[in-house]
């Protein structure tokens, strides 16, 4: 990206402007494209995908009337929300109430600047990319608190406070889970972390040693809690607080809050892929740069979206935890485990040479363990299908469309 802009400046296109301004304009342009073309569509489409995935898990069909297989449902919902009346409660704080959605979406969109969609597709290849993403996604807390307070509604206030407590507490296990990765790769730069890994599963950081394996699961749990997803979706617990901190929001403001929630899922997936699953690495099948970039993008997107689907799946399966249980999970279980993880990875790095026999053997062993777990999972699925006599009753449908 930087080289491209340099070549444009050298070609005399931006006569007179200092290079920093050109870089800024370039970043803004890329940011605008990324945000409006890509992220908002992904976030919107995710709402539709979630409804269909949930519906199949619930033995029912989700929305399938608007457009072929219901694909246009999310667009129509978006248009409906935009057309709604702009309601601001009479006693709500007028400025804060209107400000909250903007803070939230700022925190969300800014994180996409550092996400590496491909080896050459990073909007801002910062040396502190990982730290930047973690920091910027914390702006969402401020937005939620402001939304809860400014609504002048006790239920919203409770929702906002729960959210603040939850997100701030779970920053710590999330950060600590990322530490093993940072220690092993020695860098906070997202592309560097990906370059450390390879395209085969045993080269992924997930299977590098048992401590990063555990770190992945703690990271995923902490990240789900950061994104207010079940089992940690207390701030928007429907059955208790009507809609939590977004009770008083309607129309576009509601749309913004929910787009941020589903887009956040994508950030979680992207982080999980970058840090643990090898990022955009593709098998070396082509030398064409354009084809490589496209394939890298597709691979990265597929891997991140897989984790989005897993998050939806978890949301369909698990009930909600209570606030005090949430805090005890964080402080009594996740923090000690992640902390011990960091110490053990440091010990590992002292004792084991990277690339040596022991580390390769352990990587292969962990890959084997992962494969065994996945196979055992499908074995349990078949057991449940067999017990419910699904084959006999002609109920097996493998395609997600119905």
């Amino acid at each position, binding site marked *: 990206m930087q080289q491209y802009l340099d070549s444009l400046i050298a070609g005399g296109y931006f006569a007179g402007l200092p290079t920093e301004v050109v870089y800024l304009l370039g970043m803004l342009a890329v940011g605008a494209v990324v945000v409006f073309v890509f992220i908002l569509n992904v976030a919107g489409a995710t709402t539709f995908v979630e409804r269909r995935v949930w519906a*199949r*898990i619930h033995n029912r069909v989700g929305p399938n009337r608007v457009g072929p297989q219901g694909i246009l449902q999310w667009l129509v919902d978006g248009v409906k929300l935009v057309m709604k009346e702009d309601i601001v409660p009479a006693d709500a704080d007028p400025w804060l109430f209107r400000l909250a959605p903007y803070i939230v979406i700022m925190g969300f969109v800014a994180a996409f600047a550092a996400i590496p969609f491909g080896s050459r597709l990073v909007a801002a290849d910062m040396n502190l990319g990982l730290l930047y993403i973690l920091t910027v996604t914390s702006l969402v807390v401020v937005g939620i608190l402001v939304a809860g307070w400014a609504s002048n509604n006790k239920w919203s206030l409770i929702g906002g406070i729960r959210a603040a407590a939850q997100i701030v507490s779970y920053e710590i296990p999330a950060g600590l889970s990322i530490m093993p990765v940072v220690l092993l790769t020695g860098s906070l730069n997202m592309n560097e972390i990906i370059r450390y890994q390879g395209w085969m599963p045993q080269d992924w950081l997930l299977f590098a040693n048992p401590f990063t394996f555990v770190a992945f699961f703690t990271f995923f749990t902490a990240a789900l809690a950061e994104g207010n997803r079940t089992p940690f979706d207390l701030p928007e617990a429907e059955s208790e607080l009507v809609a939590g901190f977004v009770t008083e929001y309607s129309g576009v403001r509601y749309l913004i809050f929910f787009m941020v929630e589903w887009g956040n899922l994508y950030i979680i997936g992207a982080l999980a892929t970058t840090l643990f699953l090898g990022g955009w690495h593709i098998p070396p099948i082509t030398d064409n740069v354009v084809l490589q970039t496209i394939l890298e993008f597709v691979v990265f997107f597929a891997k991140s979206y897989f984790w989005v689907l897993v998050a939806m799946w978890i949301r369909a399966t698990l009930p909600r935890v209570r606030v005090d249980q949430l805090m005890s999970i964080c402080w009594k279980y996740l923090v000690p485990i992640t902390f011990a993880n960091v110490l053990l990875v440091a010990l590992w790095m002292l004792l084991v040479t990277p690339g040596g026999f022991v580390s390769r053997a352990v990587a292969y062993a962990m890959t084997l363990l992962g494969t065994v777990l996945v196979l055992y999972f499908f074995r349990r699925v078949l*057991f449940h299908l067999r017990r419910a006599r699904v084959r006999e009753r002609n109920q097996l449908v493998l395609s997600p469309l119905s």
Partner: protein
Amino acid sequence: MRKKTSYLRNIIDTCTTIFEGMAVTFSHFVRKPTTIQYPDRMPVRVQDSLPFRYRGILEVDLEICTGCLACERACPIDCIVIDVKKDKDAGGMVMTRFDIDMAKCMYCGLCSEPCPTGSIHHTPEFEGADYSLESLIRRFIKDPVVAYKPKKTGETDPEIIPILERGNIYVEEFATPESNKPVGGDKPDPKAEAA
């Protein structure tokens, strides 16, 4: 007292139960949904697939209504209004009004039980939504109608026979025994009526 579970036990329990739960949900994901996509993506119209006893919107076959007012008396919510008077010129009882207010009707079926001919019965129709409350009142009579007199020797009018047979099916299914007998046989027992 709560049984103290150990730290490690908690972690193992959480992981195993979540794993099992996710296996069950995934097994549901690959099954056919049980949704019936009413009203357009269905093999048969819903109304045709409902059981015979389904208590939908009420219907009155005026050709065989005897004007006995048994349904009006039986209705617990007073939604049936019938005007009947004796008219020597027309030869018998003449009905000028037979209104059923479907907005009040609770679809209980108590009116179709005492009907001697089975003229008032429930249909499998349930799509009765409309825009105004007045349109929910079903008025079955436009011009005054002579009430039907069941003939002791059996019905001879070829137009009425099929309606009577259909009514008999309803009587056999819905009437409580000992209080109604199908028409075409003997007269309804006056003792049962007066008791």
